[in-house]
């Protein structure tokens, strides 16, 4: 594994894409190993369901493999994969919304916090903090959740977010600002973050 692992460090994404286009199955496996974790995390942030996130990650990589020859040379592989993941997640959310006749990610059952009493952040165990963020994230509407996830949790640049989402810079900045404000509102009683912009 050491050799393969070291090799992953040396293989640039562009090299891997070229090799996949030439029919190199190992190169596609390397792409999967390199990006499957950020992709599954991103999809999980969007759909808030572990099993579904696994299915959609599979779908993302299958679509990526079938379309990789259409990828433009100047496109960053991670941006391209996140774009596909975003479409796959959005389709799934829309299908679920149609099935339920409404998007219920932000309803009370999802947002219901186990204890109303604010606890300072130092007192929050990692699991509690994770649960709190996850539930708060699920309460955002789709566009805000998307930009917040990409910027704050995945550290994408504005340029990358615009490429992934197709949003204008102005829209993504507005959505991001509002998403931050909503997240702050939900988390501040627990985290002790009382600042307002």
């Amino acid at each position: 594994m050491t050799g393969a692992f070291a090799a992953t460090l040396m293989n640039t994404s562009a090299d891997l894409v070229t090799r996949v286009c030439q029919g190199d199955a190992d190169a596609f496996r390397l792409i999967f190993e390199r990006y499957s974790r950020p992709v599954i995390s991103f999809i999980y942030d969007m759909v808030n369901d572990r099993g579904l996130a696994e299915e959609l990650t599979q779908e993302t990589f299958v679509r990526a493999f079938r379309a990789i020859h259409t990828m433009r040379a100047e496109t960053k592989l991670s941006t391209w994969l996140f774009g596909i993941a975003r479409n796959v997640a959005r389709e799934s959310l829309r299908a679920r919304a149609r099935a339920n006749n409404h998007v219920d990610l932000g309803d009370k059952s999802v947002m219901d916090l186990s204890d109303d009493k604010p606890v300072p952040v130092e007192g929050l165990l990692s699991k509690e903090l994770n649960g709190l963020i996850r539930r708060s994230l699920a309460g955002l509407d789709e566009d805000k959740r998307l930009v917040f996830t990409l910027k704050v949790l995945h550290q994408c640049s504005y340029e990358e977010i615009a490429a992934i989402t197709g949003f204008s810079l102005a829209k993504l900045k507005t959505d991001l600002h509002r998403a931050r404000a909503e997240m702050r509102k939900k988390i501040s009683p627990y985290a002790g973050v009382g600042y307002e912009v």
Partner: protein
Amino acid sequence: MKCEVCREFWEEYLDGELAPQDREQTDAHLSACVDCSESFAALTAEQDLFARYDREVEVPPFLWTRVAAHTVSENSESRPNWRTRFASLFTPSFAGAVACLLIALAVGIVYLWSRHKAPEPAQAKAPSEVPSRDPVLPSVQSAANKREVIASRKKPGSRVKAPIVHAPIDQSDVLSSDLAYLDMDEQDTAKHIEQSKMLLRSIKNVQISETDDEIDVTYDKALSRRLLNENVVLRRDAEMRAKFPTKTLLADLEPFLIDIANLPDRARSEDVRVIKERVQKTEIVAALLDYQDRGINNR
């Protein structure tokens, strides 16, 4: 710069998206204005809180198998397989040639079989005939297989069964089977140590040539960030469970994870070289290996 203007810049400042000139002005204002610097510290604390978010979602091992079944495997199936290729050989002229060859082969086998049946000469010749097969034995056969062949040579007239050659199986990506016997926390720690070891090894083994200005460390950086989050939690757990050797090891590991996590996606070769040399000098990889080699009870 007025406080209101400065506040408008904060999020972009934090996101690293502010124009250099605005950033300088914001810096200057923050260092001069107590109110703004306090509020900005709260915003930074909020950012740190989100940085601690761990979804506890892993890529299950079966996922690649499923993806491969619909991608690379499917692709290889669409290529003509050996049956198709073999069937395509049977043109009328080729079939005639094969028929002749088969007849000649059958005659040869009958001749050899009749010689083999002859009592005295066959017994005498058998040991000298068998070694002639050696050149066709695969060079990678194991010592055990060789011993089997030698043993079979001692039986005159017995047929030498070609040893089954097992291709070397790369199981280096399989974690230690010891994991099955550990409790959940120990499993997490063992898995974490294994992944950290592999990460540091990859840094230790990275080849940096003189001409490289930058190295793509996107994957390693992302991995390091995740491992860093885990490391903090596991180190605290180890401390609470009074597992001090584990705690010390994780504390030693943490600076390396921080350094790798803080690299830009395309890191300067010099920065990678510094980390690489530190990994080599401090022998942290050896310490991680040593931890894995020791028994569970010693931890």
